[in-house]
């Protein structure tokens, strides 16, 4: 089909929409990693001694660890000494209103389509925007604080609420957890912090936008979200990165703490720069995300992964308390030379714990995608229940889709079910839609959206629209 080939060409040459660089003077540390750098980062952020110590412990532990090699996507060795571990816009805006923010920064956000102004007025979403490593502006904080909700950058939390940070930092993802989480623990620059007091239902969707801007900087942000007893919060995270030829490392850590009866809903739309069509450049998205659910608590992860050269992450739930619930909904779309190795871990510890996994993978071009997940039923998890479904859709004869679920069950009353299927978009489906007058592209887009519906419907409204558009754009002409 010559038509389709042309549209594939067109698509392949389509530039990354968010591929511009903002020229904001950055305050940087020299590249490299040693104890001095860890000290320097800590000093720049005026951190208390215990945190500096914690970073150093992590760093020393990191030195003893080996980079993992078991994952499916292979990548050239990362030069950890070549990374700039701290980069902040030089003018740290101390602002009370948006007018005082560096105009170029504002423009940056406008290009991204998340103008703070716009968001503030129209959607009532509070945004904590992380520009490189320092949180620039937090909106709606005052309104939130009336209810006792703390939503601020991580460094502010360290200064203003050290007791909370000290109590929960590393409680879900200890600094010894894994290679990248340990690295993050040593050098994390900033991130978001959120605390919802007991019984409070957060009145709006909280949101953070991440962007990697300066060349050669790794982004090591850290998110700590605590929902106290009976609280509810829905948190959105969106990521874009400008075009760069070097691979950029993004090794974030997200920790969720859901205390008794709390409910955390965490949604991600990830659209980092995926590299060009030959696989040059792009972001390495190696993220550790984990939530700890106490009694009757619920943690729900929803992710739409369309970007990054390599996505490698397993948002997980530790279902510690009885009757706790974990959910994982994921759409991963890879094309060109993108690679993804993603999935989830559900650790059932408490009685009557429940988990649901719905994963949809779409692979096109030369992309390679792996679902890897673990459902672990501990001996004491009487009455535990898991249901997993992982479907893959293949577009074109050169892509790959793999499914590797691990199931470990040590309790006879637990019921674990897993099913997976892999197939291409059937010619019959396309034919049917075509004879109804839809173009091939629209037909594919419609089928893919239908394929992902179970997941997209879990996203909050604003994100669902963005995600659907994103999938459409990413798929244009990808069918032959």
């Amino acid at each position, binding site marked *: 089909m010559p038509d389709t080939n042309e549209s594939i060409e067109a698509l392949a040459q389509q530039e990354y929409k968010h591929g511009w660089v903002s020229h904001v003077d950055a305050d940087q540390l020299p590249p490299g990693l040693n104890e001095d750098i860890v000290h320097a980062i800590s000093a720049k952020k005026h951190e208390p001694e215990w945190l500096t110590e914690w970073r150093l412990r992590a760093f020393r532990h990191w030195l003893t660890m080996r980079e993992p090699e078991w994952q499916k996507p292979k990548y050239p060795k990362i030069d950890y000494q070549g990374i700039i571990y701290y980069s902040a816009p030089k003018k740290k805006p101390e602002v009370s209103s948006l007018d005082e923010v560096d105009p170029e920064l504002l423009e940056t956000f406008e290009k991204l389509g998340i103008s703070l102004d716009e968001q503030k007025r129209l959607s009532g979403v509070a945004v904590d925007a992380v520009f490189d490593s320092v949180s620039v502006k937090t909106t709606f904080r005052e309104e939130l604080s009336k209810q006792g909700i703390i939503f601020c950058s991580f460094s502010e939390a360290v200064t203003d609420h050290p007791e909370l940070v000290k109590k929960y930092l590393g409680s879900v993802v200890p600094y010894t957890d894994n290679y990248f989480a340990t690295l993050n623990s040593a050098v994390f620059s900033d991130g978001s912090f959120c605390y919802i007091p007991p019984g409070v239902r957060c009145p709006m969707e909280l949101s953070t936008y991440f962007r990697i801007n300066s060349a050669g900087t790794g982004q090591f942000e850290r998110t700590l979200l605590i929902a106290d007893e009976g609280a509810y919060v829905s948190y959105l995270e969106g990521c874009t990165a400008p075009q760069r030829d070097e691979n950029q490392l993004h090794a974030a850590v997200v920790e969720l703490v859901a205390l008794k009866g709390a409910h955390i809903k965490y949604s991600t739309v990830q659209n980092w720069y995926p590299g060009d069509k030959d696989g040059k450049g792009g972001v390495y998205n190696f993220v550790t995300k984990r939530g700890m659910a106490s009694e009757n608590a619920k943690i729900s992860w929803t992710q739409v992964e369309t970007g990054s050269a390599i996505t490698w992450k397993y948002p997980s739930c530790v279902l510690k308390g009885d009757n706790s619930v974990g959910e994982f909904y994921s759409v991963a779309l890879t094309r060109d030379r993108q690679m993804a190795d993603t999935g989830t871990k559900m650790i059932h510890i408490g009685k009557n714990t429940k988990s649901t996994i719905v994963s949809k993978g779409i692979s096109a071009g030369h992309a390679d995608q792996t679902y890897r997940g673990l459902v672990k039923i501990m001996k004491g998890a009487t009455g535990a229940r898991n249901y997993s479904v992982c479907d893959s859709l*293949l577009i074109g004869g050169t892509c*790959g889709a793999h499914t*590797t679920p691990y199931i470990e*069950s*040590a*309790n006879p009353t*637990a019921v*674990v079910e897993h099913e997976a299927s*892999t*197939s291409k978009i059937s010619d019959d489906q396309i034919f049917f839609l075509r004879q109804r007058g839809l173009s091939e592209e629209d037909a594919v887009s419609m089928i893919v959206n239908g394929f992902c519906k179970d997941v997209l419907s879990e996203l909050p409204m604003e994100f669902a629209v963005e995600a659907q558009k994103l999938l459409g754009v990413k798929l244009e002409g990808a069918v032959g």
Partner: protein
Amino acid sequence: MTATTENGFAPTYAALRKALPQEPGWLSELREEAFENFRALGLPTVKHEEWRWTSLKSIAGNQWAPAAPARISEADLKPYLLADDEIRLVFVNGHFAENLCKLPPLPEGLVVQPISRMLDSEEALQLKLGRYAAYTSPFTALNTALFTDGAYIRAGNGLALETPVHVLYVSTDGNGPAESSTRTLVFAGESVELRVVESFVGLGSAPRFVNSVSEIVAKGNAKIRHAKLLREGDATSHVGHNEVHVERDASVTSHCICLGAGLARNDVHAVLAAEGAECVLNGLVLGRGSQHFDNHIEVDHVRPHGRSRQLYRAVVDDKSRSVFSGKVIVRPGANGTDAQQQNNNLLLSDDAKVDTKPQLEIYTDDVKCSHGATSGQLDRDAIFFLRSRGLNEQTARNLLTYAFANDVIEQIRIEPLKQALEAQLAERFHGLLDG
């Protein structure tokens, strides 16, 4: 992998080389090379992804002497036989036991012989031992270096045989830990229909390490029905590799029935090497005591229009464990592949454990692949239904467990084996059926 354990087998190898009769040069070279490979690979540990749920401490922790030839009587063997008219080869402790064999006049074109007797014949060249089972994995390498004997079964073009060929590998009791390694070669020529059963039987309670490798090759349009039946003793560690090679429009069915062994690991590697090849791999684990069964399957769809099916079921009681890892690979260009994989596990006791990892690895888009895995206990509604029909709880449970396991047995197309297993299954739950 560790580099320390492989030396544990160096004395075994040396002893074996001394004990073996004069062998042709090519075989000695093959053994040397394979042992070198094993030395380099070492024994895998739980840190190795493919062995994460199976610890080999029982193998690594012992010094294994080559099992000595022993004599057993026909009466000892009686409970393990399938049918009177079967074609039977028996090996005791890895050595050919001619007095126990049953080799009626065979149809033309069929050769059933111990490997040891084939080495000097003209066919030795055709044997090409290790041609299909590459000795790049530790236990296959070790087997190639240490095997003493095994069955050689070859059927010429067009032969169809209903009578199964039953190969029994028997381990006897003895003093101290002993090792035996055997090899089975099954070649089916074009349009052949052949049935082969491999039985592994343990008669004693001394620690044994049994390492078996089977190479099964089906040429164009051939049909092979194969089964491996494990009835080893509780102190036996059994490691087996089953290499299946399927050519154009041929079909291989292989059942692995695990009833006895302290630790058993079965690897099946099936290559669908030509268009339209088919492969059905099924398995059943009935675990009790502290048995540990590990089934590892890899089906490799190399060419288009292949079809593969897997159904593995495990019933684990007491402290037993069942591990399943199944992988379906669809290579680039293997369009029209149809692959299904199913693993179901039934846990009967609080201390039983199940680990499973069904995997799909797919590199082309025109495929129909699916897999499913479940783990749990008996359906309460089903029990309730049976109880409402007047069955007591225990009987209801046994009936359902029997049905669960029998789904696998039912698919066996080797009649005497199927009947024997059905009887055995009924017996296992018989005492309870009375209750």
